[in-house]
Each structure stands twice: as C-alpha cells, then as structure tokens.
C-alpha cells in the first residue's frame, strides 16, 4: 500500500512537472517557435527513419544469418575471429567511422548507411550467437535422436529458444542506431541532425529542440515497438515476459 501510494504521488508530480514545464515554455514562446519548424521536422523524420530502416535492415539480414552460420559446428572455429572483427567496428568512434566511410563512399546517405550498419551489426551478431549457444545441448540431442534434420533442429528448436535473446540484441542495436543517425548530417546524410547541428551553430534552441525531441521520441518509440514484437513473437513457453 505504501509503495502504491508513493508511486501515485510520484506520477502526479511528473504530470504536474510536465504541465508546469509546458506552461513555462509556452510563456517564453519556445513551443510556438519549435512548432514553426514542423514542416522541416516531418520531412527530416522521414529521412531519419529511412536511414535507420535501411541500415538496420541490412544489419538484420547480414547479422542474424552470420550469427547462425557461426554457431554451426563447421564454422564454429571462426566465431571468435569474426566477433573480434565486428567488435573492432564498434570500438572505432562513430565519428571516425563516418569519416572513414566518407573517404571511400563520398558524401550523402551511402556512407552514413554503411557506418550505421557497422554500428548496428555487432549487438545483433553477438546476441544471435549467444542466444543459439544458450540452447541446452540436451535439447539438440533429443531433437537429433527423434530424427530431425539439422535444418529442422534450427527452425523448430534452436531459433524459437534463442529468439528472445536475439530480439534483445536487435532492440539494443536499433536504439543505438536511431540515436546515432543525427551524426549522419555531418557527412551530408540528412536526418534530424540537420536541425540539431544547425540549431547549435546558430545558437537557436528552438531549432535544436525541434531536432532533438523527435530524435528522443523516435528512439523510445522504436524500443517500445521492438519490445512489443519481443512480447508477442517469442513462444509462450520460453518467454520470460509472459
């Protein structure tokens, strides 16, 4: 009861705080100024999402199969080497990565997509490998002993039991991805970074916020959506959320 009371009070405080903040910003004229950018914002959100979607999709299409291949007995010996290489891609600072990508792909969205792809790949590959390795060996032995082919074992036993961990990786990867897209502006990739960096340069907080707030909201929204996918897609028997 005490905890529920505390949580209730906290919730009211947050609502009240948000309301007060809104009233204050309205009084200062910040909100109308932000809304003044709405046309730019809708255009840039689309661009932002396109960059994130393309790089994310490529990372999914490459990362999950790569993770699967690296857990097959024939290729398992390469797993460590490959994860090291992918790891290296993440260790390089994002800005440096963008610069390197630009130096051989030119400016515009292709180098931005490439850099985002490299960044997104690691959590997906690592979690695919970790998820598949976490499937107990005796389940695989039972499946083999019952006469499943390796493909059937992968589809019916390994992937369903690993999908929760794999999706957790996808969730992290996409959150990083969408939060990093603003940097694409620096190499002419577009996206909400255009408003953020221009706002900084012009010392115009309303423009800065018009870029920053949607970026933050998008990250939260994508995280929520993948969380929902995780909730509904993972089979009930192995879903710790259900």
């Amino acid at each position, binding site marked *: 009861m005490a905890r529920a009371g505390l949580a209730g009070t906290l919730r009211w405080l947050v609502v009240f705080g948000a309301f007060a903040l809104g009233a204050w910003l309205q009084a200062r004229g910040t909100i109308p100024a932000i809304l003044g950018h709405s046309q730019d914002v809708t255009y840039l959100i689309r661009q932002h999402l396109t960059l994130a979607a393309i790089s994310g999709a490529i990372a999914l299409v490459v990362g999950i199969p790569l993770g699967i291949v690296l857990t097959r007995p024939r290729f398992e010996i390469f797993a460590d080497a490959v994860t090291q290489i992918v790891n290296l891609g993440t260790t390089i600072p994002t800005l440096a990565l963008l610069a390197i990508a630009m130096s051989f792909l030119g400016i515009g969205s292709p180098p931005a997509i490439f850099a985002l792809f490299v960044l997104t790949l690691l959590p997906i590959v690592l979690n695919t490998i970790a998820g598949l390795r976490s499937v*107990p060996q*005796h*389940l695989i*032995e*039972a*499946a*083999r*002993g*019952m*006469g*499943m*082919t390796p493909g*059937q074992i992968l589809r*019916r*036993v390994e992937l*369903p*039991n690993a999908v929760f961990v794999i999706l957790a990786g996808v969730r992290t990867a996409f959150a990083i991805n969408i939060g990093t897209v603003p940097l694409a502006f620096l190499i002419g990739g577009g996206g909400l970074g255009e408003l953020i960096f221009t706002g900084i340069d012009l010392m115009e907080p309303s423009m800065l916020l018009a870029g920053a707030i949607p970026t933050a909201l998008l990250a939260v929204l994508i995280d929520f959506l993948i969380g929902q996918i995780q909730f509904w897609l993972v*089979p*009930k*028997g*192995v879903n710790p959320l259900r």
Partner: protein
Amino acid sequence: MIRLEQVSKHFGTMIAVDRIDMEVPAGAVCVMLGPSGCGKTTTMKMINRLIPPTSGRIYVDGKDTAAVDEVALRRSIGYVIQQIGLFPNMTIEENICVVPDLLGWPAAKSRKRAAELLDMVNLDPSVFLKRYPKQLSGGQQQRVGVVRALAADPPVLLMDEPFGAIDPINREVIQDEFMKLQAELKKTIVFVSHDIDEAVKMASRIAIFRDGKLIQYDTPDNILAHPIDAFVSEFVGSDRTLKRLRLIKVTDAMMAEPPRVRAEDTLDTAVKLMDEHGHVSIVMVGPRGRARGVVRLEEARERKGTVGEHQEPLPGVVNIRDDLRTAVSQMFTHGVTWLACVDDDGFYKGYVTQKSITQVLGATYRES
C-alpha cells in the same frame, strides 16, 4: 530384433566400445549396466546412429542400420534421454506430436494420439495438452518424455537413464507405471542405467559393461545368482541374493492347496489336520474360503470347543502376486516364519515359509 555384431567405437586412440556382440529379442527390456565411462551409453547411441560405429554391424528388425537413412532410422526408434529434453517452446501436445509431424501424419490423428498417450500415464489430457513443459513437475515431465517417444508407435525404444533425474519416491511410481505400459505394448527396449536395483526391476536381460567390453549378458536372476567374475559380483553387490527376492513371485515359492479349517470345526479336527501335515498352526477360512484367522497346535491341544472360539488373528498375509522381497519383509515385520498367501479377493491360496523361500533361492545352485 536388435543385433550387434562385432561393434566397436574408437575415439582417437581411446577404445570406447570394443567388439560387442549381443542380441535383444523382440519385446525384451535389455538394461545396459556399468560404471560411468564403460561404453554403455555409446553402445546405445550407436543403435540409432547418433554415434557412428567405427566398425561392426548393427541390425534393427533384420535391416542393417548403416544401409538405412539415419534420419528415417531415428524416426522409427523412440528415444528418451535423462534430461527429458522436452522442447520448452512447444506445448505438451506439440512435444508429443514431434515425430508424428515429422512423419507427416494428419494433424487430427496425431492430436488424438497425444491425448490417448497422456491418458495412459494418468495425466488428464484436458488439463495438460495445452500446457508448456515449465508448468509441469519433474515427474510429469518425465512421463511426457516417455510417451513422446511412444507417439509414432515405434517397435524399438532407446532410453538413456530415463528415470535418473527423478526423486526416489516418484522414480518407483514411474517405473511401475512404465512396466505396466510395457506389459501392454511389448516394445523392444534398450535401457541404459547405472542402478542395479532399477535393472533388476525392469530388465528381462541385463548387459554388464566394463572398459568398453560386454562382460556378461544374461537374465537378471542368472546375473545375480551366477556372476561371471569378481567385477560383476562386486558390481551387483554383496547382497545380490537378497536382490533375487525381487525377481521371484510369492506363487513360485508357495505351498499350494494347504490344509484349512472352518469356524464351526472342532479343535480335535484341527489338531488331527495339523498332525497329518506336521504343522504347528492352521489357517481358519470363512464360508467362501477367505483367510480369517489362525489356530495354534499347542493351544488346540489344551482346550476344547470349536475353532471359531479359539482362533487368533493372522499375524500377516501376503498377496500371491507380490514378490518374495515383500513376503520376507512381512515375516520380519511380524516376527514369524510363515505367511498365509491370499489372492486379490482375499481367498486363502497357500502359505510361504522361510524354508520354502530358501529352497527356491537355492534351486539354481543345485541344478548347476
């Protein structure tokens, strides 16, 4: 049904299984027994080719397993492992239907089969079919593990310490259930165990392994009565003759057609009957032959009257279908040297004495 000819398995320079020859007849339960690392599990896994043999041939139902597609072979052989291995992402129903689905059975048929099988192990299908493995207790999971192996009705079953992970009380219950099932289904079963008591209970043949070699392959009674060497006799334990009690039914050691008296008979009749048979006591039966009580000779000699007036309650009875272990245990519990044997309805069928039990146990040594 299953025949191994000179089967060997080498892992590098290590010889895990060394030229095994054995045959498991149809409907038999063959328990492979031995200390860990003796090659019993490897031998079993070579039957469904989970482990490919280095040399030698294995025949299942007359067909050389090397000539059959390994996936098809495994689908035709039931497989139960110690860790149960139910797939946590599937419901109990889906788990049971794995092999039927792989074989392409129509869904209606396999689902009906799943319900029947659950019923056979006393799990209510309406409750359990749609549950997930994690919602079941260990014992329930193991029952599902066993019926899953039976789903496509394979003639042969391989079981790798299937009851090893269950607590002792539940293990006994599941073993009994399984033996009842097996009496009905008559599958050919290869069963790996390291527990001699389990082996004695389940097996029609026991195969004892050591260091990759098959040391002795015989009926449980012969393994216990005539261990081939010091290793086997040590492995089966110094109380091996006591273990044999479990293999013999009360009927086999019982003196049938015993003398009996009724309540209305006089003590004189009772004394006469006892003298005739050389007994010191006699069982009194009811009007339709149920065992009711007992009259002792010393008592009957001293007194006059009818049996009904001087009877004492029976010190202990044993069902004729029980094994001698139960009978001996009863004797020690009640401090007597004989027990009245009754059938399921309580009718007096005969009696066992310590002497008759000793005779039955000793018979095998006198013959040889």
